[in-house]
């Protein structure tokens, strides 16, 4: 298989700038942690970060830390520490890795950023159950540990159509966060500031969407694996000018690639859609595996999840409520299937990879017959790989490799 060994992926130049703004973000949080001059809030990744920013909090995202624990492959050693505290190996391995990391006093931040030796301590914890129940339990553990207030938004789940039945109740919950947050921050809520932050978040989201949608080009200038790295600012810095500036830079580079016909995976033969979470500890080996087969996994539900097209600065609460509920993860299988179908068509996809992540049923969409239904409807074949976002004990690299190679051989036969 001489061909397979010559993998070629094109590195993105903007990565360096992303490294810089992410470092700035972590050092700013670290500084606030040391001096306590600015208040720190912890927030879930698709939670009401805009409100927190508008009220002057610096925001730490435990899920981002969870992903770093996965990508640095520290997670697998730390998960058992939380398991021993009664947090099962079957539940969210962001949660178990993160709590394990705290209990052992080890963090990937220390390796990446000189002088930082721990995550910043919170003044308040704010979650949204739109994605799952695990975040509530996760934040509750820290609320107990740090003796700080725990606030939450409880979203309806498995929604078919996002209608008036749902939105006002979520918007109301968001508004009700304001008085306790004013008390914690010692600052009065300023509507204009919130509008400003929501406007910046919307800009970030629009640009992020444009970045991801460049993958519709043949050949695609970007891969899903690039997306999982470059989504960092959309997760932790949305609502800031830094994120907007960054995506303008990245988008310009990708547009240049398109103009020059530059492919992210040289000789792109097959175009795949990734459904589910990445296996953080295997990002580069998976990227290599597919590139070696001249296959670009170029789009995903996961990276698209930080597109919030409904943000409207003129109506912040209602529009945030809508945007954070419109999300794929909050929806019924029926709505999800419709969405994936559109994406398959838009990105001109040859096949789908479903990642059955052992510890995240919420981001796993192949357990209720969806692959079979979608395949029947679209004729696009799919493959399920078993794995996990963080817990590498759940992974067989050999089985993944054989399954992926066999899937590509199947696509070859069809061509």
């Amino acid at each position: 298989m001489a061909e397979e060994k010559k993998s070629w992926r094109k590195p993105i130049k903007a990565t360096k700038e992303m490294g810089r703004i992410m470092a700035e973000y972590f050092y700013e949080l670290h500084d606030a942690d040391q001096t306590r001059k600015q208040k720190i809030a912890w927030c879930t990744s698709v939670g009401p970060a805009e409100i927190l920013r508008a009220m002057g909090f610096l925001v730490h995202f435990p899920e981002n830390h969870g992903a770093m624990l996965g990508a640095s492959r520290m997670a697998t050693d730390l998960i058992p520490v939380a398991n021993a505290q009664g947090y099962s190996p079957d539940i969210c391995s962001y949660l178990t890795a993160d709590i394990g990391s705290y209990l052992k006093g080890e963090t990937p931040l220390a390796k990446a950023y000189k002088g930082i030796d721990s995550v910043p301590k919170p003044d308040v914890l704010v979650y949204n159950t739109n994605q799952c129940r695990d975040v509530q339990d996760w934040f509750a553990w820290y609320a107990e540990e740090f003796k700080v207030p725990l606030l939450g938004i409880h979203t309806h789940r498995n929604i078919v159509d996002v209608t008036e039945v749902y939105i006002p109740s979520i918007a109301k919950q968001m508004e009700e966060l304001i008085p306790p947050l004013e008390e914690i921050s010692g600052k009065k809520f300023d509507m204009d500031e919130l509008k400003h932050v929501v406007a910046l978040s919307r800009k970030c989201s629009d640009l992020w969407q444009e970045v991801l949608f460049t993958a519709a080009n043949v050949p695609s200038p970007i891969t899903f694996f690039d997306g999982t790295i470059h989504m960092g600012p959309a997760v932790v810095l949305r609502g800031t000018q830094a994120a907007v500036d960054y995506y303008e830079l990245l988008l310009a580079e990708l547009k240049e690639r398109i103009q020059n016909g530059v492919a992210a995976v040289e000789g792109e033969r097959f175009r795949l859609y990734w459904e589910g979470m990445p296996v953080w500890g295997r990002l580069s080996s998976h990227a290599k595996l597919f590139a070696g087969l001249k296959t670009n996994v170029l789009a995903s539900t996961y990276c698209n999840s930080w597109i919030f097209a409904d943000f409207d600065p003129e109506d912040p609460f209602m529009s945030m409520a809508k945007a954070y509920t419109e999300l794929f993860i909050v929806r019924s299988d029926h709505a999800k299937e419709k969405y994936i179908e559109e994406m398959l068509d838009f990105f001109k996809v040859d096949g789908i990879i479903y990642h059955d992540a052992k510890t995240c049923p919420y981001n796993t969409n192949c357990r209720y017959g969806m692959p079979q239904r979608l395949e029947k409807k679209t004729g696009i074949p799919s493959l399920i790989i078993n794995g996990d976002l963080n817990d590498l004990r759940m992974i067989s690299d050999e089985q993944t490799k054989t399954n992926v190679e066999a899937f590509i051989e199947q696509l070859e036969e069809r061509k």
Partner: protein
Amino acid sequence: MGAAKPVYVGVDVGSSRTKLAVMDDRRNLLGFAVRKSGTDFYATAERCLETGLQMAGVPADAIRYCVSTGYGRKNVAFSQDTRTEISCHAKGCYYYFPMAVSIIDIGGQDNKIIKIDDNGNRISFKMNRKCAAGTGAFLEEMSARLDIPLEDMDGLARRSTEMVKLGSFCTVFSGTEVLENIRSGKKVTDIVKGLFFSVIKRVMEMDSLTEKVVMTGGVVANNPYIVEMAAEIIGHEILVPEYPQLTGAIGAALYAMDIRAKLADTQSTEA
């Protein structure tokens, strides 16, 4: 040089056994070999090659092309290309049964259900998940626990009069269940049949089956009673190739033939 008839070799290096097939250009199986894979895949493959060529009655320089497959497909010094075992099983099965079928392959470490259409093209495949339940490894583990030789299992299961039902999903739990049954005085024959039944059940729950079903793999080769039991469960006959264990190796040899023909084509157009 050139006197010996050209042959194509397929070698399937499984986690438990290495299988090799030698075929001529008219797709006749001339020779084959099966050996324990052991720890040195390279050496085992070489020894299989010697045996296979000897049986075929051809020298090594008669080999036109070789494709390897299976878990150790990259550990074969003499192969020029690789294909996954999924593709090779499909191709090997279609060689025996040129029709739309579902293939159930029960191997040493994994199971597969592969569906192919009328033209031999693969429609879908499923490989088993992380656990050994339902594989050859499960039967090996149980034979050790029950202290009965693996090769006696088929005969024992056939003599069962009242099969013991084992409900558990996992190999370790099944082991406990087996011990409980021994303690409560159940007959070994009935327990062994229960083990066979649990292997079949684990495989069947991986995917739905189409009308025609083929069974392959080492477990089937050594325990033909499993096929009879499975046929009873699905309610119709199950097809089994002449050498169920060689399906992957035969498929690999057929790929070798295809690839060689394609290479010859490109060379002639380039010339």
